[in-house]
Structure formats: C-alpha cells, structure tokens
C-alpha cells in the first residue's frame, strides 16, 4: 500500500472556490441586467447576446484547437467575455458585429497575449472600442420602441432634460446591458458581498466621478443639481463599467492601494471624457486607458511586508 500514498508539498487542503466558480457567479450577477435588456429591447437583443457568447466560446476553442493547446472554455471566462461584449452592444446591431467583436476580444486581445490572465486590457471593452471606431454608425445608433432616438447622456449633452426614474429602471435607449441601473447595482452588491469583487474599485470610481460631477454642476452655474448627478450616475455605461468591467481581475490592480488609485483615476477620466469630450460616453475608454496603467500603478503601490514597514 505504500506506493499508493500521494506525496506533495504542503498545504494539503484547498479552498472549494475555483476559477470556474468565480466566473459563474459573475455571470449570475450580470443576468438580471441582461434579462432586463432582452425584455426591454426584444428578441433581437437576445440573439445578439447568444451570438456573442457562442462566438467567444467558439473562437477560444478553435484557436486553442489549431495551436494544439489545452481547451480552457470550461473555465467560463470566454462565456463571460461574450456576455459582457453582447451587453455592450446596441440592441439592433446586425449579427456580424458580435461575430467580429468576439473574434477581436478572444483572439486578438486575449489569446494572442497568452490567454486567461495575460491580456493587458479587458477583452470585451477592447472589442467594443474596436467596433466603435470601425463601425461608428452602427455602434452609435440607438432606438427605443422602434423609434431611433438619442441616449439620455446625448440628450443631456445637447442641454435637454432627461427622465431620471426611467434611467434608474432602464426603460431608456442604450446598449443591451447598460440601461437597468438597479439590476446592475444589485449584481455588483452581490459580487461584493460574496467576496468576488473588492469594494474599492467601484466605490472609488463612482465616488470620484460623482464628486467631480457635483463640483462641475456647482461651478458651471447649475447649482446643486441632484437630477443632473443621478442622470450621470445611472445613464450610460457607468454602473456596468464600474461593477463589472473595471473590476476585471486580470486588468485591474491587485494591491489594495492600487485599487484605490485605479478607481480614482477612472472616475476622473470618465468625468473628463463625458463632460469635455466630443462623445457623450466615456466609461469604456476610461477603463481601457486605466487597464494600460495597471502595471505602473501596481509597481508604485506594493504593500510593505509585515514587520518591514519602517524600511526606507
């Protein structure tokens, strides 16, 4: 019997949580907002989500098959990328848009850099930015109840009033998954409570952004305008971005201080892009830029080892 005893280095027990388990919980947290998107925008939106998810999984499997690597689609990270990408697309895009987006997200952003854990930017956001630049018209045409219309942020940018309550519940034009603020916040809180996501990035991101918007409102003569603030918080991709994209493990800092710096940076950048930029939206570009700075942020925020705090 001696030969049957297994030998390994300590520790000899492992926590039950797995990569797949984490991905499952993030997907579960996104589902309410996604389901609302389907309810809000109709069957075509559902098909866009499905095409996006299937293509992401398919491209990952195909790429790994062709290169003779181990299949990793079981970890569900490709499925999550597909869901996020779909939720970041306008509801009426033709199906070739998610196909191209999936290819860019999985093959170019993720696999070419070494697969899960190695990509330097969020694959879904990278693909969204790629699509936005390449097919600007299709990516920025939003309609609601079959009427082509501007998103609330674009309406505000033009100086008009918006319905904050509708923005909170999501009955507004926008991408499939970004409109229902209440569902996204609930999903985000679920992830924080479950310990999947640390509170620092979303709290500092949203907090910084809210503070700057408020200051801007006061100093630009609007006064203490709560509905302007609410519209900025619940309009556009802020909630989806702050809870689900900025917190992507791979492309955000690991260090506690780094997460604060990252959140503040994203908040400030989103503010600048939205208020002073040409486009009404700024969340995706802010996060992508933040992603690129992560190695630098981590480098300067390495925590002091226990008992070594007094070191120079």
């Amino acid at each position, binding site marked *: *019997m*001696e030969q*049957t*005893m*297994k*030998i*390994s*280095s*300590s*520790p*000899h*027990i*492992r*926590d039950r*949580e*797995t*990569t797949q*388990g*984490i991905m499952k919980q993030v997907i579960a947290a996104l589902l309410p907002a996604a389901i609302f998107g389907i309810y809000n925008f109709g069957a075509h939106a559902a098909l866009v989500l499905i095409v996006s998810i299937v293509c992401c999984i398919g491209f990952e499997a195909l790429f790994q098959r062709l290169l003779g690597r181990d299949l*990793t689609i079981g*970890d569900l*990270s490709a499925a999550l990328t597909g869901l996020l990408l779909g939720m970041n697309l306008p509801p009426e895009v033709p199906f070739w848009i998610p196909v191209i987006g999936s290819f860019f997200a999985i093959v170019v952003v993720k696999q070419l850099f070494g*697969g*899960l*854990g*190695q990509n330097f930017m969020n694959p879904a956001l990278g693909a969204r930015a790629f699509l936005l630049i390449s097919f600007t018209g299709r990516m920025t045409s939003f309609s609601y109840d079959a009427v082509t219309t501007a998103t609330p942020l674009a309406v505000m940018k033009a100086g008009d009033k918006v319905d904050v309550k509708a923005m909170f519940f999501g009955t507004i034009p926008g991408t499939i998954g970004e409109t229902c603020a209440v569902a996204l916040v609930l999903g985000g809180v679920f992830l924080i409570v479950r310990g999947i996501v*640390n509170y620092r990035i979303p709290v500092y991101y949203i907090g910084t952004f809210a503070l700057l918007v408020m200051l801007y409102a006061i100093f630009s003569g609007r006064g203490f305008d709560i509905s302007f603030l609410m519209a900025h918080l619940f309009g556009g991709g802020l909630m989806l971005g702050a809870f689900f994209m900025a917190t992507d*493990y*791979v492309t955000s800092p*690991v*260090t506690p201080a780094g997460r604060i710096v990252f959140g503040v940076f994203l908040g400030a950048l989103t503010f600048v892009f939205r208020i002073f930029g040409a486009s009404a939206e700024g969340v995706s570009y802010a996060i992508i830029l933040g992603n690129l700075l992560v190695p630098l942020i981590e480098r300067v925020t*390495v*925590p*002091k*080892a*226990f*008992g*070594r*705090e007094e070191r120079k």
Partner: protein
Amino acid sequence: MGLLTFSGGIHPYDGKDLSKDKEIRDYLPKGDCVYPLSQHIGAPAVPLVKKGDPVLVGQKIAEAAGFVSANIHSGVSGKVKAIEPRLTVGGTRVNSIVIENDGKFEEMDFSANIRQLDQLYREDVKDMIREAGIVGMGGAGFPTHVKLTPKNEDAIDTIIVNGAECEPYLTSDYRRMLEVPAKIVTGLMIVMNLFDNASGIIAVEDNKPEAIRILKKMTKDMDNITVNPVKTKYPQGAERQLIYANTGRKLNSSMLPADVGCIVHNIDTIVAIYNAVIEGRPLFERIVTVTGDAVKDTANFRVRVGTNARELIDAVGGFVVEAPEKIIFGGPMMGKAMFSLDVPLVKGSSALLCMKKDPVARSKPSNCIRCGRCAEVCPGKVLPYKLAELANKGDLEGFVRMEGMECCECGCCSYVCPAKRHLTQTIAGTRKQVLANRKR
C-alpha cells in the same frame, strides 16, 4: 473591541471535532524505537551508547553537540540494537540510535533530579531544561534553552504560551489545556521566573472556550498572567502573528521574538519544562493526535518519542479504506506528506492525519487570474502571485526585492488560490535557493 488577531489568514474546515473529545491515552510502543540524532535545529547529537548497551527509560542516549543542539533520551528500556542511518519523515536517512524494546519500561530514578525550587538559581533551571533535551515541540524543534538565553535578558517582558493550535485537525494542545492546566500555568511561571521583568500570556483561539474557561479560572488570582482569547483564524499560532495579536509588536523574518521582548513556547513544550524542572523527567514523551477520515478511530496519544508511526495507526484499529490517499505528519497546512509509515515519531511530531482523498492531487493548476486572494490572506503582506511569477522566471533578485524572504510558508496562498496554483511550494523552493546562494 474585537478579539485579538492579525490581518489576513484563512478559515479552513478545522476537523477538530473528530478528536477533540478524546482523552489523552498512554500508548506504549511494542516494537523497537528509533532515535534520529538530528530531530532539532542545530548540530546533531552525539551518541553516548554503543551497540549492545542496556538502556533504561529516560536515559540520556545522545548528548548535545554544542550550545545549539539537544540531548536525546530513550523512551523505552532494552538494549541498543544499532546506530545506523534510518529513514525519517523528511525522506532522508538520518543517523539514528535503534533501541530494542524489552517491553518492561524500566525507568531511571528521576527523583534524583528533583531539587527544591527555592534553592534553584536561574542557571540551574536552564541547565535542567537543557539537560532534559527540550526543544520547541510545535514542529520547528528549536532548542528551548537557547530560546531562554536571549542577548538581553532584561528586555524580555512577555512570555507567550501558544495555545492557539490553529492548524486544522490537531487537538493535542487542546487536550493538554483541559487535562493538565496546572502544569501549563506552573511551567509558564518557571519560565517567567527566569526573567526580572516578564509577565505571562496564555493565548488560546476562541474556538476552545472550555480551555479558556479552565485556564482563566486557574489564573484569576495571578496579576502577571493573562489568558488571552484570540480569534480563530489560521495562522493565528504562527509566532509573528501571535506576538502581534497579543502585544501589537511586529517582527520580520530577520528578527527573533526576543528582539521585541517576547519568548513564545508551545503548550507541549511548557509541559515538558514542568516535567523537567518539577518532576525531574527528561523529554521522552509527547502528545500525538491520530485523526482524519481514513482511520477507524481517532485518538490523542501520549507516546514515547521514537515509536514507529505505524504502531499508532494499528492502535486505532487501522484504516477504514484499503489505502488512504494521503497521510500527513502534522497538520494539513504545514505538515509533511508521508511516503512511508515506517518512520519514528520525533519530538516535533504533533499528528498523523490520514485522508481518504487527496484534494491536491485532484486539482489541476491553471492560469493565474490575478484575483488577489493570495495577497488578501497573506499574513506576511507580500504578493504571492507576483513572487511565484518571479520565481518561475528564475528572477531571484526580483524575488528578494519583492520581499519573498518574508514568506513564512504558512500555505494560505495555495489554500485560497482559485486557479489551484502551487504558490507556497514555488515560493518556499525559491527561498531555499536564495538561502543556499547566500551561504555560498
């Protein structure tokens, strides 16, 4: 105010229910006993006996070779069968004294060692502890008399008895606290009396309320001894974490507890000190927990050092399965996986943990997803994922710069990693490499 604790750590399934209600039972070895000459930190002991010599229980059979070394005493009577290399749990063959057990357990006269306490000088007490061959019995095996001889004796103000027993499954310290609390308190007082300014702390994790109650009751009239409940969290009993939780003082890998005025002793070590100073008995016994889901019954045995590990498995009725996948010498977080049961129990052996299934063999490492869990749980506040990355690249300089040497190898990072990466193993291996390079 919250409980005393540290930042980081994990809460694994503790498995203590399996054996915590089992009273300590004596187990007397049936077969030969094997005494590796190196079962402590420091120089191997030098044999005092030769083949064929008769030996009594408690007889000194090997003598410390220098200050940082320890005497070894026989736990059985009989005669010396051989002095030869024998397999130890570490996998290496270590020169050992093998004693043929005559089964009579004839003891030496320990009363000759007993002296009136009030006539003892501090040096006498330290001599008795050194003579008894006492080493740290939590596993490290550092000679106790060396610990008790710090550079600056006046600076020592806190003696901590480590009753945290944070390793899952282990219950030997818990049973000691329930069954012989007076010996623990007296042992602590013996150590405190070695220093002018020392007060005592007995730190116990709050998952052992019965032990806390008994010890508190026993020390309620003593001003200079406090019983501190500490939060149940692994690795609460790690020396640096325990000192921080109880005193707020921090030490790093290049410091000794004495540098911050502390000395920490394991429960079993304190009992050994009591036995040596009050009863004149050298260290030849210890408590070993036999537990896990693969054994027919669990037990807390008082065993003779040198006993073959297999005898304890037989003593609980063997295994419930034909072959357990893994047997661990010590606890599941820092213990060693055994490849043979035919090794002797040594002064630092706290448990035999037998597991039907080995979770490590069932988990396949995948890519790091940078979730940061390893950094959150690390009691040393280093970045394990980063250290493992540098280690895999062979970047020893970067490894040291990122404080890889501050790792205490507690295992929290590997435990918590969702990608099942062997972080502790990678980091521990690289630390050894760095240390070896420094010696060169």
